[in-house]
């Protein structure tokens, strides 16, 4: 099962990354901006927030974000199931022309894009929740002020120094994952909602 999960996750990450840059006509934007622009912006914001936060996440923040993410996961799973047969219905009519073919292909592409991006958002939300759980489980280890620590040249407490180093790195990684992924979840949520509305109104107009 773990092998299958790995495979599914790999496919999901690869395909969702591609679909984030692909429009409904299956044109992939290969520009530097499309590939790395958003990632760089999120990276800068994340590093800035890690610097500003200093001592990690407050209890209120953890409680609030956990609730929001739980609601979003539920919402996205519903949207995913809903999209399965609502967004794309194969054209069974004998009458076919360029417009019907175009709409059929665009609906197919949008349904796939929606499914991959929504699924990735669910997975990212779950990973963020797991990262937040660390702050609750190991409260003392995950509210360290990273900027109070410096490198020292002491060989007596080598084990303790290594352990402190691991904890500090874990703190940094946990904060990075939570903030970076929250930005990604917010962005994807905006995309999912706005594109869904646009798609639905376009479909109504075509009737």
């Amino acid at each position: 099962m773990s092998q299958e999960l790995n495979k599914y996750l790999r496919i999901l990450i690869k395909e969702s990354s591609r679909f984030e840059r692909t429009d409904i006509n299956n044109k992939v934007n290969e520009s530097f901006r499309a590939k790395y622009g958003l990632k760089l912006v999120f990276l800068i914001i994340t590093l800035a927030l890690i610097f500003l936060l200093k001592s990690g996440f407050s209890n209120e923040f953890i409680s609030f974000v956990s609730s929001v993410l739980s609601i979003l996961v539920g919402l996205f799973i519903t949207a995913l199931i809903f999209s399965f047969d609502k967004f794309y219905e194969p054209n069974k009519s004998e009458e076919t022309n360029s417009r019907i073919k175009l709409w059929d292909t665009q609906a197919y592409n949008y349904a796939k894009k929606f499914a991959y991006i929504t699924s990735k958002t669910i997975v990212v939300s779950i990973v963020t929740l797991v990262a937040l759980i660390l702050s609750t489980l190991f409260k003392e280890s995950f509210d360290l002020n990273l900027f109070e620590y410096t490198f020292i040249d002491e060989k007596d407490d080598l084990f303790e120094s290594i352990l402190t180093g691991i904890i500090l790195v874990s703190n940094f990684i946990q904060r990075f994952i939570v903030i970076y992924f929250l930005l990604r979840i917010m962005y994807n949520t905006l995309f999912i909602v706005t594109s869904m509305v646009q798609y639905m109104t376009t479909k109504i107009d075509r009737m």
Partner: protein
Amino acid sequence: MALNPKLEFFRFTLKPKDKNFKTFKEFAITKFELDKSSSDAEIMKKYFSYFIESLDGDYSKDENQKKQITLIKNEEVNKYLQYQPKFKSDANVIHGVINGGSYGRERILTNKNDTNECTEMSLDDSVLQYYYFLLYLPLDHNEGGFILHSNSGSESITKIFRRFISKVFGHDGFYKTEAELFSPISFQDEFKKGSHLQNMSFKKSFVDNIPNTNGISNKLDEYDIIVKVVPKNKGISISQINQVRNLFSKFILSRGNQTDIIGDFDETKFEVRNPINKSNKTFEWNKKDNEFSPVVYLEGRIDNFNLDGTPDFKELEELCQNLFNDEVLPELRPDLNVTRA
């Protein structure tokens, strides 16, 4: 070469009165009363025979322009009958060389070396030349187009062919279709790169109806008024063209109480020169899209020309087929480039 043959590109859309999307196949089924199960090959064959029949019909003559288009099927007279129109049902294309020219003038036909050898040409006699066209009628789509060759401003069937297409693709239940000039983006990019403005001209063919005592007014329709703007600084880039046009298009040509804004003239052209390859190109203002469209001259694109300065039709046919597949089709049919992810 006295002539300067060029290609022009047009697109036109079927406009059903019930506002539904109607393809050229549906149009043919309605117009020719065909069975709905007719194959694409049968429909294209019908379109082709209808097109050829129409070349001898009322739509092929324009009394205002005193011009006609037709197909002379006498192989002793028509030098290029081998290139007569044919159709490709799989590509939805009708293409070939037709004849067109003017009538309605009292003229004399004579030998330039022996003027005693002459005959009178009546008002009904047309002087016809050879013009290549490529007409695209996509059976699964509602927008078609055509490429048309002309030799110069006066040696052209552009106006009458546009009118012909509008009439031929008219039917009960459809609004009149208008063929609109367009230029593939790739041409625009090719021409715009690094070019500088040489001159800009505004042209108007006057039809004046103001009573005038000196009599010249009645003859104004025999003249073209051309206002030419030539920059002293030859470094004006093509990106500033619209500013130049906006500046001069507000100028007014005035005669007594009658005024004409230059920007409303019939034709606006500008010529640019590329200092790198030292070539000159001419653009025309496209009133529909409010932008300049490059004119695709055949000099440089065609190697062989006939003795009368017209392009070699075999070469022209190949060029137009390539241009159609590579440049025109992707723009007329963006849906063909949409694939499943």
